[in-house]
């Protein structure tokens, strides 16, 4: 057995289900995202023009709570899914332990900021906002 020499090693070897849970999450969220994202792309990009995504169009659509929830689900699931996927990559490619730590911290911060920013947008929005 590889004996842990440092606290970080020990933590890595400690027995938690974190990796298992993330693995399951990637699969469940993936299946859900197939519908959400392909649907989103179809509705906002393939079948209609990018030109149509005007301020009014977007705000009008998001006034509907169903679309609000739809988009928020995409936001949550794909950020979590994407962030965890990117974590896999970071853990693979960033070899030195301190670097890995800092890269991860900064990356998670960015993801959290995006999430907060996106959520504020979605939920503070009313059609009359800022008119």
């Amino acid at each position, binding site marked *: 057995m590889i004996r842990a020499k440092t606290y970080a090693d020990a933590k890595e070897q400690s027995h938690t289900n974190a990796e298992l849970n993330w693995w399951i999450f990637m*699969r469940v969220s*993936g*299946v859900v*995202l*197939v519908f959400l*994202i*392909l649907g989103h*792309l179809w509705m906002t*990009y*393939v*079948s209609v*023009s*990018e*030109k149509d*995504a*005007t*301020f009014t169009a*977007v*705000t009008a659509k998001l006034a509907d709570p169903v679309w609000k929830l739809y988009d928020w689900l995409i*936001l949550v699931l*794909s*950020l979590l899914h*994407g*962030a965890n*996927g*990117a974590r896999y*990559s970071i853990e693979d490619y960033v070899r030195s332990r301190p670097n890995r730590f800092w890269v991860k911290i900064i990356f998670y911060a*960015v993801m959290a900021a*995006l999430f907060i*920013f*996106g959520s*504020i*947008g979605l939920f*503070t*929005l009313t059609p009359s*906002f*800022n008119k």
Partner: protein
Amino acid sequence: MYRGREGQWAWLLHRLSGLAILAYLSIHIISIGSFIFGERVYMAIHEVYDHWLFRLGLIAIVAGVLYHSFNGLRVIVMDFTGHGIRYQRHLFWATIVITLIGTAYTAYMVIPRVLAGV
């Protein structure tokens, strides 16, 4: 380059497409979310988006999403069934075919609009 077979390339494309989508998603959140700063800011960003280069680039994102989704399903099938592993090569090629068809259709829909400027 290691001469791996379908599995290796499937994985590499999955990772690259996943990271690319994440990168795009981040920009997308900022650009769409920018409407909280008002119409002027939003539309200024939207102008850039409207550039034909971006619009064509989005076709690549669609390709990435298509590949990532269907390969994601391939991975899930492999994780939970023996058949998935037995037919993983076929599933990979099926993913490629679906991606190509979907991307072609998207291009067919989008390029005329881009050329026409609508």
